C-alpha cells in the first residue's frame, strides 16, 4: 500500500539519483509568505540548500517584486501555468486555506511533493482528498504545523513521559489577542471562504500541539460567539485525551492570559507562548524551575550536518522546511504528515459539529439572550 513512507522513499531515491539541489515552487505569496517563508527561503538559497524556481500568486505586482529577491524564480499568476513551465521537487502552499486542496492536488499531479501551510483544509473532505492524492502519487505531504519545531514541546513531552508531574493531567491552553495579521482580503472572516474563524486559525496550531503532547483528542464540548453571518472570534473547547483533559480558549478579539498550563497529581508544567526553548515546572509545594530544552534540529541537508536550536517562530519555519527537504533528500520523517494534519481537521470539524453559543459572562442578560438567538448553530 502506498503510504507516506513510500512517498518519502521515492523522493529520496529520485533526488539522490539526480544529485540536484531541491527546486521549489511557492503558491501564495501573501502575508504568510512575506512574514515567514521569504526569509527562510532566502537563507536556504544563500546556503545552497534549495532553489526557488517559481512564485505563484494572482497579484502580479507582488510576485514581480519577489522575482528580484529570488534570482532563479519566475512569476506566475496561476498554478496551472506554473506547473506547465516548471517541475518543482517541493511545492510550498501558502494560499488561502480554501484553495489548499486544489493547489495540493495540482502539485501532486505534476509530480511534486507538498508542504502545505496550516490549516491543511477547511473541510474533512478536502483534507482526505489531499491525503489520498499524496498516496496515489507516492509523494510526500507535509503540513506546516510550525510549533512542532518548538524545543519546549520536546521538553514537555520528555517531562510528561518521565512522570515528572504525575498523572490525571488537567490543562488550560489559552491563546488570544487582538488580530493583527496583515491579511489582504476578508476571506478569513467569512465562513464560506475561511471555513470558520479563530478555531480554524489559531485552533489548528493549538490542537496539533496538544495532539503532540497527549495523542488523539475527543471534543467533549465546544462553544463560540459566531453569529449567523459571522465567524467565531472567541471560542472554548472542552477536550479529552488519553490521560489528560482540559480546556482550550482562543480569541481574535481580546487578550487572554496566554499559555499552556498542565497540572498533574504531583506537579505543574507551564509553557509560555514567547519562550520557545524552555518550560517551567515544579513539584507540588516546590519552587518553579526553568528547564531549557536540549533539543536541536538539523540546519542543513548534509547527512551529519550542523544542528541548531530555533529561538523564534521564524527560525522554526526555517527548520521545518529543512526537515521537509531532508525527507526528500535523506528519507527522514517530516515534522507533521498529511494524516496528522487530517486528524486536526477532523477535530476542528467535530468542534463545529457540537457548536453552542458561548457564555460571555460580562454581557447583560438581555444581550446574552440576543447573542444566543443569533448564534450560527441556531439558524436553519
Amino acid at each position: 500500500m502506498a503510504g507516506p513512507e513510500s512517498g518519502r522513499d521515492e523522493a529520496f531515491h529520485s533526488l539522490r539519483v539526480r544529485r540536484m539541489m531541491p527546486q521549489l515552487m511557492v503558491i501564495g505569496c501573501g502575508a504568510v509568505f512575506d512574514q515567514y517563508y521569504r526569509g527562510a527561503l532566502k537563507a536556504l538559497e544563500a546556503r545552497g540548500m534549495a532553489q526557488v524556481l517559481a512564485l505563484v500568486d494572482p497579484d502580479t505586482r507582488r510576485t514581480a517584486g519577489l522575482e528580484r529577491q529570488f534570482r532563479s524564480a519566475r512569476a506566475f499568476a496561476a498554478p496551472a501555468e506554473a506547473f506547465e513551465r516548471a517541475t518543482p521537487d517541493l511545492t510550498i502552499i501558502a494560499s488561502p486555506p480554501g484553495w489548499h486542496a486544489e493547489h495540493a492536488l495540482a502539485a501532486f499531479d505534476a509530480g511534486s511533493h507538498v508542504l502545505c501551510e496550516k490549516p491543511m483544509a477547511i473541510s474533512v473532505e478536502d483534507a482526505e482528498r489531499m491525503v489520498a492524492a499524496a498516496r496515489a502519487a507516492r509523494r510526500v505531504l507535509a503540513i506546516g504545523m510550525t510549533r512542532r519545531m518548538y524545543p519546549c514541546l520536546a521538553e514537555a513531552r520528555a517531562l510528561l513521559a518521565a512522570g515528572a508531574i504525575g498523572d490525571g493531567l488537567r490543562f488550560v491552553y489559552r491563546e488570544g489577542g487582538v488580530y493583527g495579521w496583515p491579511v489582504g482580503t476578508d476571506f478569513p472572516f467569512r465562513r464560506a471562504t475561511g471555513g470558520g474563524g479563530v478555531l480554524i486559525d489559531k485552533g489548528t496550531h493549538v490542537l496539533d500541539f496538544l495532539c503532540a503532547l497527549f495523542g488523539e483528542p475527543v471534543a467533549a464540548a465546544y462553544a463560540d460567539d459566531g453569529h449567523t453571518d459571522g465567524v467565531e472570534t472567541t471560542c472554548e473547547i472542552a477536550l479529552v485525551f488519553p490521560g489528560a483533559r482540559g480546556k482550550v480558549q482562543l480569541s481574535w478579539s481580546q487578550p487572554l492570559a496566554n499559555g499552556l498550563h498542565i497540572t498533574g497529581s504531583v506537579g505543574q508544567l507551564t509553557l509560555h507562548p514567547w519562550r520557545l526553548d524552555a518550560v517551567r515546572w515544579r513539584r507540588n509545594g516546590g519552587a518553579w524551575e526553568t528547564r531549557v530544552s536540549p533539543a536541536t534540529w538539523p540546519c542543513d541537508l548534509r547527512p551529519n550536518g550542523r544542528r541548531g536550536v530555533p529561538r523564534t517562530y521564524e527560525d522554526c519555519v526555517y527548520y521545518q522546511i529543512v526537515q521537509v527537504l531532508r525527507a526528500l533528500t535523506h528519507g527522514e520523517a517530516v515534522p507533521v504528515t498529511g494524516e496528522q494534519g487530517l486528524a486536526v481537521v477532523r477535530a476542528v470539524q467535530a468542534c463545529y459539529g457540537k457548536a453552542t453559543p458561548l457564555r460571555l459572562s460580562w454581557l447583560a442578560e438581555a444581550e446574552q439572550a440576543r447573542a444566543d438567538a443569533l448564534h450560527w448553530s441556531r439558524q436553519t
Partner: protein
Amino acid sequence: MSGPVAIVGAGGFVGTRMLEMAVLEGCMDVVPVVRSFRSVARAANLGVPHRLGDAASPASLEQALAGCDAVVNLTSGDPAEILRTTQSIYAAARAVRARLLVHLSSATVHGQVEQPGLADDAPPLLDHWMSYAREKGHAENFLRERMADGRLTIVVLRPGLIWGPRSPWVLRPAAELVSGTAYLVGSGEGICNLMYVDNLVRSIAAVVGHPANATGFYHLADDETTTWREYYAALAAGLGVDVATIHRVPGDRYRAGVRGLVEELKKLPPYRWLKDRLPPEAKAAIKLRLRLALERDRPAQRGASAGPAVARDMWHLQTTRYPPPTGRYRATFSLQNATSFAAGLAASLAWLRFIGLDERDGAPG
C-alpha cells in the same frame, strides 16, 4: 435620521463595543468603516458587512461614508496621524452631506486638570508632553475653527479613561496587580477619570439621536468620582490580590525607569526608521533577546518582591486633581449614565476571570 451612522475606526475597542451594542440592542443602524481587512477580525463574529476606508484619504472615505447621516470618528493609532485623519474625516463627511460629525477627543488634552470646574470649551494644552494629547488638541482646534461656519454639526466628546471589559484601562492595572507590580502615585488620591464604555456608547447614541444642532465641546465621565486608590482596591478585591502588595511611588515628580526610557526610545525617528526596514526574522530575534534580558521571572517574583515599572503616562494620569464637569452634556442631551461604577466593575471582573487573569500561576481550576 435619514441614513445609517458610520463608525470610522470600528475595529478599535470602543468601535467594536459600539457595533456589538448596535447588533445586540438594535439601537442604531450602523456602518462599520475600517482602514484595512485586519480590522474586520475583532468583530467578525457579528457578521456585519464592513466598508473599507482609509481615514487618511478623503477620497477613499467618501465612498465608505456614502449614504450615511452621521459620522462617528473613533480612530486611534499613530498620534502623528491624528490631525490629518480628523481633517480627512471632516472633509469626507462634508462631501457626502452628512448631518453630523461626532469626534471622540480625550480628557488628556487638558493635562492633569489643576482647577475645578474646567469649562467644556476650554482650549487644549498644545504643549503637552504626550504626543497623543498634543495631537488630539490640534485636531480639536481644527474642528473648533470649522464649527463657526455651521455647515456641519460637529460634536466633540472628551471622555476620560474608557474602561470596561476588554479595555486596556482594566487589563493593565489588573495584570500589574496580579503580577505584584501595581503602584499608586503618592497617596493614590488622584482622580481616576473613568468613563464606562457602555456609558460612552450610549452617550454617542444620544448625540446622534439629538434633533437639534448641538455643535460644541462636551466633557464626559461616569457619575461617581473615583480615586486611583479606590479603583485599584476594587480591582484587587475582585481578583483576590492583597492591597498591601500595591507599591507607592513619589508624587513630586516623574522619574523615568528602564521602561520609561524604552518608551521614549521608541518615539525617536531612528527607531521608527529601523523598525520599518528590518525583516521580520530580525525583528523577532531582537524582540526575543530584549524580552529575555528585561523580562522578570514572574512567578518567582510575584508579590511584594516584584518592583513596579512606572510609566510616564500612568504617573501623570494618577496626579489628576479634579474631575471634569459633565453638566453641559447632561443638560444638552438629557442622558444619564446607565452603568454605575459597581456594575461596571462587576462586568470588568467577570471579563478578567473569563480571560484567566485571576488564575494564580496559570493553575486550572
